[in-house]
């Protein structure tokens, strides 16, 4: 059996580990258009900040490819798939055959439709190690940076850059920061915290036009910048599937065994659309744990095993300038406020189930809440008042606890 994996990040690595848990000997060839050993993408902001280095950023140890008997082809782009003959065609024109193919192509930066965007003196995205290296080499203490997008990536970029002492403005059409991961109250707490540390925000506003060093907003005001960072969301890399005639623009669809509609082709990670079990909606959940778990399941299935990844939910754990934030699930249903001083806490309950939560400040043991969502635990089987106060195993029945902790 010969496996080809396109993408050398979380989903691709999950694919390798999944395949190797079933098949120790099949041939694995991996392609990446980046020039690096697998690295942790979220760490690029820590790199910018000087809190980690390239060596510590590697997502797996140095011997990973050798130990797993993987041939890694770096700096090589897969240009097309010849599904009929089961070959991938490389940008060099060469090709490689496969029996099973995993697309773990991730996502790329979306380009917002802003008039004159291409005229910006210095324009960056913030998705790859090369992006971070380029930004780091150019930013200076007197730089004026404008970041378009107040989502996770935009805010992490702001945090990373703030260490240099440059002046930073973050703007977004949305009326609040982290609009996908927080409700209004939580978002304003995060915004205030970052403002106190010198980051400026211009939310609920639209850039009408960009010239060399100036962004002019719809209302006529402007912000001058030396460096423009566009962090306005990501788009799934699905061209390879689209070129096969599949309707995959908004994410590749896979079945419960990670297979796409084309025989022999599997997909996982940020390029895949899947069902959020906390809301029942289909979406792309561009987070690393999902990417790994989907990749791992795909790998097992490619190697003839049987594994479905059953509990995808949106969730985010992020620390912004010292403030800890964890949120998960959907913010629908009845709201339970349980924050204490200096902390923010909301639980969302519907149909006797925990659907989502937001914790800011105090986030210890959040995973117990996450497990209530993913396990769809009926809340009337636990002591919910106790659970609301603190995530704790005490809130489960004695027999439930025994199952969890072993012993008698």
């Amino acid at each position, binding site marked *: 059996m010969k496996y080809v994996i396109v993408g050398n990040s*979380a989903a691709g690595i*999950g694919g390798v580990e999944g395949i190797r848990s079933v098949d120790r000997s099949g041939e694995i060839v991996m392609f990446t258009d980046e020039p690096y050993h697998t690295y*942790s993408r*979220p*760490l690029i902001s*820590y790199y910018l900040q000087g*809190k*980690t280095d390239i060596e*510590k*950023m*590697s*997502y*797996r*140890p140095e011997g990973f490819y050798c130990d797993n008997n993987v041939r890694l082809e770096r700096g090589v782009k897969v240009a097309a798939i010849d599904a009929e003959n089961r070959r991938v065609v490389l940008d060099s024109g060469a090709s490689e055959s496969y029996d099973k193919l995993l697309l773990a192509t991730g996502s790329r930066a979306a380009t917002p439709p802003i008039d004159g965007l291409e005229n910006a003196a210095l324009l960056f995205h913030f998705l790859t190690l090369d992006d971070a290296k380029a930004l780091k080499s150019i930013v200076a203490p007197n730089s004026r940076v404008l970041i378009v997008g107040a989502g996770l990536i935009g805010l992490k970029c702001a945090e990373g850059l703030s260490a240099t002492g440059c002046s930073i403005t973050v703007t977004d059409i949305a009326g609040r920061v982290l609009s996908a991961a927080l409700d209004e109250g939580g978002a304003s707490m995060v915004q205030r915290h970052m403002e106190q540390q010198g980051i400026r925000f211009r939310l609920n506003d639209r850039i009408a036009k960009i010239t060399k060093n100036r962004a002019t907003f719809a209302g006529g005001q402007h912000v001058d910048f030396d460096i423009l960072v566009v962090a306005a969301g990501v788009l799934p890399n699905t061209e390879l599937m689209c070129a096969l005639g599949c309707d995959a623009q908004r994410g590749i669809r896979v079945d419960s065994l990670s297979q796409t509609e084309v025989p022999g082709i599997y997909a996982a990670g940020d390029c895949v659309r899947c069902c959020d079990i906390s809301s029942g909606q289909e979406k792309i959940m561009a987070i*690393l*744990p999902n990417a*790994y*778990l989907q990749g*791992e399941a795909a790998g097992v299935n490619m190697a003839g095993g049987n594994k479905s990844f059953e509990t995808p939910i949106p*969730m*985010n*754990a*992020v*620390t912004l300038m010292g403030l*800890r934030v*964890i949120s*998960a699930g959907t913010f629908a249903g009845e709201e339970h406020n349980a924050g204490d001083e200096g902390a923010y806490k909301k639980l969302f309950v519907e149909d006797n189930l925990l659907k989502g939560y937001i914790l800011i400040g105090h*986030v*210890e*043991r*959040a*995973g*117990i809440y*996450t*497990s209530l969502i993913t*396990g769809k635990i009926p809340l009337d089987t636990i002591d919910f008042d*106790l659970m609301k106060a603190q*995530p*704790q*195993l*005490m809130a489960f029945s*004695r027999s439930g*606890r*025994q199952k*969890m*902790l*072993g*012993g*008698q």
Partner: protein
Amino acid sequence: MKRITVNEKWCLGCHLCEYYCAFANSGGEDMAKALKGITIQPRLRIEQAGCISFAVACRHCDTPLCVKSCITGSLSVRDGVVCVDREKCVGCYTCVMVCPYGAVMPSESGAIQKCELCTQRSPGIPACVSGCPNGAIVLENGG
């Protein structure tokens, strides 16, 4: 597969395990000196309410969600023990978000800390197990 199991009905709620844990991971020679005047940060914790108490420590799961979800590759399984590379960990707390037992702990350095069954310190029996006066924390060596 080594792991700690907890006999809830034998737990006295004395918190000694927390002290033994903190001491074992302090690198100190003398327990009283090592722990004097500090707020201990043990890698396991006692939950207590009324007359019920029990210790919660890492279960070293067969399918460790923390390891699979770790965004940096700092968590890994070594000989069945879930270990953290604290040099590499940036303290993003993704593991805290996914551990269903709430067994991943914060630490002063910012990196997370967790029970590693004392494999990094004093090989043999974990300090909480040997220190429990009532046999409420047991090391299982099952397969």
